[in-house]
C-alpha cells in the first residue's frame, strides 16, 4: 500500500547534511509498524515526507500506487485529509472545540453529512472509551483522555494510513499503555496501516514490526 523507494532528503543550512539517505519501505494494508532511532536522525522528517508536508530531494513515495511527491500542496492536502490520520505527542486538540467537534473535524472538513458524522464520531469516541466526555472541552481532560480524542480524530474518517509521532511522550506509563492498546485496536479494526515513531521499546513492542532509522537507511530490527 505504501511504497517508498530511494528516498533522499537533506537540509541546506549552516551544516549541510543528508538527513535521510536511500530509504526503502513497503507497508501493506493492515500492517502496523514502529520506527525507532536516535534523536535527530530524521524520524520526524521521514514522517513529514510520508504525510506530504515536505518534499524529498529524490526518490518516490506511493500511496496505493499514487505518486505523492509529484503532487502540488493542495492535492497533497486533500489526499492527507482523505487518507491519513495524525496523532501528536502534544495532542494538539483545538481548545475552543468540544471533544466531539475535535474528533469530528476530518469528517466535517471532508464535507460529510452531519447525521453520519455524528454517528461515526460517537461510535469512535465509544471505541476509544470516552463517549461520556463528548461535550467536554480539551482543557477539562487528562493527558490520556486528550490523546484518546486525538486517536479518535485520527481514525474517524477511516484513513488508510495513521501516523503517530511519539504519542505517549507526554503520558504516564499507565495511560501510555492504554493509549497504545487503543491505537493498535483501532488501526487494526479500521483495516488501515499505521506508523508509530517512538523512542520507547515498550511502545514499539505493541506494533507488528520494528524498523530502526540509521544513517545508512531504514533497517528492520
Amino acid at each position, binding site marked *: 500500500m505504501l511504497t517508498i523507494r530511494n528516498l533522499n532528503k537533506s537540509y541546506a543550512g549552516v551544516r549541510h547534511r543528508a538527513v535521510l539517505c536511500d530509504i526503502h519501505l513497503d507497508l501493506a494494508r493492515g500492517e502496523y509498524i514502529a520506527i525507532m532511532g536516535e534523536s535527530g536522525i530524521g524520524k520526524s522528517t521521514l514522517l513529514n515526507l510520508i504525510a506530504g508536508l515536505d518534499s524529498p530531494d529524490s526518490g518516490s513515495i506511493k500511496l496505493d500506487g499514487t505518486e505523492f511527491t509529484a503532487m502540488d500542496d493542495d492535492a497533497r492536502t486533500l489526499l492527507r485529509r482523505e487518507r491519513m490520520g495524525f496523532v501528536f505527542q502534544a495532542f*494538539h486538540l483545538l481548545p475552543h472545540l468540544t471533544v466531539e467537534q475535535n474528533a469530528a473535524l476530518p469528517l466535517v472538513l471532508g464535507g460529510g453529512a452531519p447525521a453520519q458524522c455524528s454517528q461515526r464520531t460517537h461510535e469512535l469516541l465509544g471505541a476509544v472509551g470516552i463517549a461520556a466526555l463528548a461535550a467536554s472541552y480539551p*482543557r477539562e481532560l487528562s493527558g490520556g483522555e486528550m490523546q484518546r480524542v486525538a486517536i479518535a*480524530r485520527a481514525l474517524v474518517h477511516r484513513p488508510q494510513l495513521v501516523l503517530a509521532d511519539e504519542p505517549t511522550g507526554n503520558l504516564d506509563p499507565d495511560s501510555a499503555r492504554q493509549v497504545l492498546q487503543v491505537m493498535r485496536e483501532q488501526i487494526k479494526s479500521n483495516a488501515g496501516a499505521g506508523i508509530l515513531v517512538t523512542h520507547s521499546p515498550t511502545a514499539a513492542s505493541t506494533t507488528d514490526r520494528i524498523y530502526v532509522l540509521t544513517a545508512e537507511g531504514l533497517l528492520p530490527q
Partner: protein
Amino acid sequence: MMRAATLRALFHAASAGALHDNPGRFFLALLGIALGVSLGVAVHLINASALNEFSLAVRGLTGKVDLVIRGPRAGFAEELYPKVARLPQVQAVSPAVEIDVPLSGSSDRLKLIGIDPFRMAMIQPALLAGMQNQITDLLDPDAVLLSHAAADWLGMKAGDTLRAYVGTTSIELKVAGLLPPSAYRQRLGVMDIASAQWRLARLGRLNRIDLRLHPGVDIAAFRHDLATLLPAGVIVTTPDVEVERSASVSRAYRLNLDMLALVALFTGAFLVYSTQVLSVLRRRTHFALLRVTGLTRLALVRLLVAEGALMGVAGSTLGVVLGYGVAAAMLKHFGTDLGAGYFDAISPALHVEPGALALFWLLGIAFCVLGATLPAIEAGRRAPALALKAKDEEESFKKQRAMPYGMALIGFGLACTQAPALTGLPLLGYLAIALILLGTILILPWLVAVLLPRLPAPRFPPALLATAQLKASPRHVAISITAIVTSFSLMVAMLIMVGSFRNSLDHWLTRVLPADLYLRAARGGETGFFTSEEQARIAGTPGVASVRFLRSQNLLLGPDRPPISLLARPVDAGAAHHTLPLTGPSRVPRADEPPPVWVSEIAADLFQYHVGDHIILPIGGQAMRFTVAGIWRDYARQTGAAIIDRDLYIRITGDTLANDAALWLAAGASLQQTRQALRERLRGADGIDIAETREIRATSLAIFDRTFAITYALEIVAVLIGLFGVSVSFSAQALARRREFGVLRHVGMTRREIGIMLGCEGIWVAGLGVGVGLALGWVISLILIHVINRQSFHWSMDLHLPWLALAGLAAALVAAASATAVWSGRRAMDRSVLSAVREDW
C-alpha cells in the same frame, strides 16, 4: 529597586529579542503614536500660531491704547471725534475708518484702514518713525500703503493699481508703497482717513477712535463716563477686550479641532495597547521562563511598562518633529485657515509654545504607558506554570469586572449632555462623548460575551471553525473590535452630524432663497450698495415682476461681543413664517407694543432673547425698542442677526441704500433675458453680481463641503488606525494559534480554507465592531448635533441619517477589516505552522 545595569540586562533578555523579531510591527505602532502626536501638535501649532498672530495683529491695530471707541460697520458721525479729543482726560486720540473692501478681479477681500497719520503718531510713534517718508505719499487721495502680508498675498508692489468695489462700481487705488514690515502683520491696506472717507463712500463717518489718557486718569471711571457720551450702539472698550472678542469668534472652532487631534492620540494609544498585547503573547513563554528563574512579578510589569514608555518617547519625539514639520509646511503653503475662514487675513510665522509641545510629548508618552500597562499587568498576573504549558489564553480573561464601571461612565456621560455650556464652550459635551466612548469600551467584553453565543453556526467548515473560534474567545474579539468601535463610531458621528448639517443647510437655503434672481453690490462686501436710483432701475427692468431689497448693517450690542448683523427687508409681520425660516411660532406685536424684530437663533442664544421679549437695538445711533416676533434659523451669520422691516429702518436712519435685491420674474420672462436686461440697465456698474438661486445654492453647498474637508482627512486617519487595530489583533491571534493552524493543515485544511476561515473571523469581528460603532456613533452624533454644535455655534439642525453612505462605509470597513484579518493571518498559511505542531517548549 532594580539597579540600572540589571534593568538593562533584563531589557536585553526580555525586550531586545521582541524588537529584533518583528521590527516592522514595532515601528508601525511607533508610527501610530507619532501620527497621533503629530496631528495634535500640528493642529495645535497652526491654531496657536494663528491665534498668536491674530492677537499680535489685533494688538498692532490698536497699539498702545488705553481705550478704543468702536462703532458698527456704519460707524458713527465724525463729530464724536473732536468732542472726545477735547475731553481733558484725553492725551491723544486717533480716529479711523475700517472697512473690508471686495477686490475686483478676484474673490478676495482686503481690510482697508483710513488713519490720520499725524494723530496716529501720537499713539504709535514707532509706526510713524517707520513710515517717515511715506506720509506724504499716503496723503494722496488715491494712495494706499499695503502691509507686507497684503502685498505678498496680492502679488503687488509700489506703483501697482488696486481695484476695489464701492457701491456698484470699482475704484482704483494706487499702491504708493509698502508699510514697514514691523507695522502691521495682517493683510491690510492703510489709507489717509480723508481718502478713505471719500473713496470708500464713508463721508462723515468713523468706525473707531483710539484714545490714550493722561497719566493718572482712572481708566475704568473715565470709560464709564465716556460711555454715556456715546451714541447708542457705539461702545468704548479696552484693547484687551478687543483682542479677546476677535479671538472669541473662533474659540469653539479651535476647540473642535483640538478635540479631533486628541481623538487621534487616543486611538494611537490603542495601537500601543494592541502591539503590546501581541508582543506579550509572543514572549509569553519567554517571560514564564524569566519568572521561573526568579524575576518578580513587579519587575516584569515594570519592564513591560518601561517598554511602552520607551516606545512613547520615540513615537512622541517623532510625532512632535513630524507635527512641527506638518504645521510649518501647512502655514507656508496654505496659511492658517483650516477651512473655516477665521484666520484668512493673516499670514503668521510658526509660533512655538514649548510648553504646549512638551505637553503633547508627555501626553503621547502617557498614552503609551497607559497602553502598555494593561497587558503588562496581565502578563504579571499570569501564573508562570500555566504560560509554560501553553494553556488556553482565555483562561485568565474569564472575569468581567469592568462592566459596572463602564455602565456608570455611560450613565454619567449621558447626564453630562444635559449640562449647559461652560464659558461659552461645550466642555461638558465633549466630556460626555469621552465618557460614553470609554464606558462603551469597558463594557465591550461583556457585550461581546453576550452577543457572540447568538452567532449562527454555519455548515461551511471554515466558517464553522471561525464561529467556534470567536465564540470561544470573547476577550480577544473585544480587543479586536475596540479600535474599530472607537474609530468607526467617531466617523459615524461626524458623518451623521455633517450629513444633518448639510441637509438642514440645504432646506434652509430653499427657505431663504425663494426668489428667481439675486443681485448684490460689490460681491456682498461692506462697501457695496445700490443707490435709490439704481434700485428704481432694477425694479423697472422688463421681466421683473417684483423686487425685495435688503439693507445689511451690523450692530454692536456689547464690548465683548462681536457685532450682530442687522437685515432690513420687507417683512409682513402677520405672515413672517412664510418668508423667514422660523424655528417656532411667530408673534405679531400688539398695537401698544414696539415694532417687531425677528432674531436668529444664534442671537437668541447669545443674548437670551425670547419671543415676546421687548429688546433694545441701537440702530442709526438711537436705542430703539423692538418686540421679538420670532426666532429664525440662520447658518450664514455666525455672530447673530436680526431682521427688521426695511420701511421702519429707513424711517429710523434715513438710509435708503440697499445691499441685495431678490427678484421675482414676471410670468413668461426668461432668466437669461432678464439677466441681460438688468446688465444693460446697470451698464457701467461692474460691481454687481447677478445670480440664479441654484447658483447660490451650489456655491453655498460647495463652501460648506470645503469647510468640512479637514474633518474628512481626520476621519481617514481614524479609520486607518482602526484597521491597524484589527491587523494587530489578528496578527496576535495568528501567532497564538500557530499550532492550531498547524494541526488544521495536518488534518487536511488547505491554505485557502484557512484564509477563508480568517476572513470569516474578520467579517464577524468587524461586523460586530461596526454594529456597535454604528450605535455608539449615532448616540455621539446626537450629542454633536444637539449639544456640541448648539453650544459652540448656536445653530440647530435636524437629524438626518445618511443611510446609504453609512451602509457603504460599514460594508467597506467590514471588507477592509476582513482583508486585513486575512493579510495579518498570512503567517498561519505558510509552511512554518506545520512544524509548529512539533514545537515543544
